[in-house]
């Protein structure tokens, strides 16, 4: 990725003026004395509070989760003697059909949301990059859904998806002629998985678009000009220049969305609650049910650890890809 100048030139001059003024305001007597804390102690002083907070709120609980995953502890029965059960929960989880159903539902959700969001998001970015009049304004409008609260979004889409009274069914029936009460997006086993995919795509396509747009804008004009001089067709230019050069950005967006949707909870919880049956019960919802409705604390801790390892693996891939993007 190309490095753009950090400050406009005028601001730079201003910065120097501030620095000069700061320098002028310092008495000359002390100007050469090096006082105060050493850089080394400042570095530790500055980093320590963050680290302590993260250790207390993230790492300590994580270690506790690992411990709990080997026990029969149940949070609604805190006085029961705690027994070490070894790897029982891990074996149970990996052989549980319920867990595999949840993982399949999650995979279905992640795959289709990423596919739709990448296709629509990249196309939109490509169109916005034509720089038509007012593109900045419309881009900002398009970005609004991704900033909203997923829980609140899930809740009001539940309203839009109501058969009979909902806007979604009405619009579909307007264009297809189907009676609006003939299908239930949230009540049908076949449609509900697509209902959550539609809402997620509505919400997060702008995210992919924004990253793709940065990718398209990072392509220097002279490369396309050179291709034009060589009489490469538009089609050829797109496949051999635009797409390869924007690819690291698309990958970055895909990985971010992958991680986020793998742990998706709030929007789907409010929209379907995992139903009908368990057709939209994603991994996080299964985990929530085991931990906070069935109070199987040990079992759910083991599942949490397994999910964390998967996400951590994805995160590693992400950081590698990110470094590749940065090297360009």
């Amino acid at each position, binding site marked *: 990725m190309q490095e753009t100048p950090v400050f406009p030139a005028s601001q730079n001059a201003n910065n120097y003026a501030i620095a000069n003024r700061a320098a002028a305001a310092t008495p000359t007597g002390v100007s050469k004395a090096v006082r105060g804390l050493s*850089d080394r102690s400042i570095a530790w002083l500055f980093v320590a509070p963050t680290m302590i907070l993260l250790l207390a709120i993230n790492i300590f609980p994580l270690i*506790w989760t690992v411990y709990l995953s080997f026990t029969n502890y149940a949070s609604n029965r805190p006085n029961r003697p705690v027994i070490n059960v070894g790897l029982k929960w891990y074996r149970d989880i990996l052989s549980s059909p319920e867990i595999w159903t949840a993982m399949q539902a999650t995979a279905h959700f992640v795959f289709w949301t990423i596919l739709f969001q990448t296709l629509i998001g990249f196309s939109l970015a490509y169109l916005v990059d034509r720089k*038509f009049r007012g593109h900045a304004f419309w881009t900002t409008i398009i970005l609004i859904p991704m*900033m909203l609260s997923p829980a609140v979004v899930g809740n009001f889409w539940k309203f839009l998806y109501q058969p009979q009274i909902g806007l979604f069914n009405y619009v579909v029936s307007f264009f297809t002629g189907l009676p609006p009460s003939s299908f239930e997006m949230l009540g049908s086993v076949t449609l509900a998985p697509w209902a959550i995919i539609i809402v997620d795509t509505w919400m997060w396509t702008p995210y992919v678009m924004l990253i793709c747009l940065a990718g398209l804008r990072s392509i220097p004009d002279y490369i396309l000009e050179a291709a034009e001089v060589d009489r490469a067709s538009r089609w050829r230019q797109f496949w051999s220049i635009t797409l390869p050069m924007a690819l690291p950005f698309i990958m970055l967006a895909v990985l971010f969305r992958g991680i986020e949707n793998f742990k998706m909870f709030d929007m789907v919880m409010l929209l379907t609650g995992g139903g009908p049956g368990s057709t939209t019960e994603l991994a996080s919802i299964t985990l929530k049910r085991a931990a906070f409705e069935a109070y199987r604390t040990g079992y759910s*801790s083991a599942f*949490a650890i397994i999910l964390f390892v998967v996400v951590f693996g994805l995160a590693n891939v992400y950081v590698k890809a990110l470094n590749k993007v940065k090297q360009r």
Partner: protein
Amino acid sequence: MSGASTTAHSVVEPSATSKRVAGFFVILYALISMAPLAWIFATGWKTPPDSISYPPKVVFDPSLEGYCNLFTTRTRQTNEYIEALGPPQGACDEVTRRREMVIAGQSNYVPRFINSLIIAFGSTFLAVSLGVFSAYAFSRFKIPLADDLLFFILSTRMMPPIAVAIPIYLMYRELGLSDSALGMILLYTAVNVSLAVWLLKGFIDEIPREYEEAAMIDGYTRLHAFFKVVLPQAATGIAATAIFCMIFAWNEYAFAVLLTSGEAQTAPPFIPTIIGEGGMDWPAVGAGTTLFLIPIVVFTIVLRKHLLRGITFGAVRK
């Protein structure tokens, strides 16, 4: 030669036709994607019967009922009782009485909204304060294993919230932090500090070291230079980071629904619980959703130049 110059021009500057076609599709998408939001906004101004009418009503008489129901609790009364009350006081009273009900008191929406504000501001302040110090240290000093520490900070954000919530729930129960604003502030601070460190490191990296070095040569201590030179330079970045942290805390649902139930409950877990007689009170939900989303829409417009940086943890800058 003249032909070559026009084609070269067309590469940098798309033709008028392609611009118009692109504009048409982008604006079409924008309008379609705004339709659900427009609908929920409109629903806030409908009466409950209008909100569930078939076919859905696009044109309707605006009513205050949704907003009245959002802020009040009501009880059903007999006609005689209502007639004996005398003239209605205010618009909400009048709307409520038309449904043969009287206002019984304030709903929980305002306290939940205030909880959201307290927790969002508190956690943002803490996360940005911690973040700016750490970011400065990572940006300017040689810290052993800096890349690993930064990755560790980021990885805490990758954990599924429910997985984190299990031990936090037990820990808070032991410490008496369950359902307390302080507990939520600490938790959101821990989640947000990773974003704050990454974003602010990017912003501070962009401030030339020469400024502090010049100040230090002139006798400033490192701490002085940090407060007097670096912080003012990073003001825009700090503001952008703060808004991102605030939006996260404002929108968060998973921790809020699992760890708060009454006193410290925020708005996102509360809004879905707004129900009227015989089902969801959709106008009240529409009203509550509208009021809850307006600050975010405003912030999105304010932040538009920094959005890309914020959503990618500073990995992509424009």
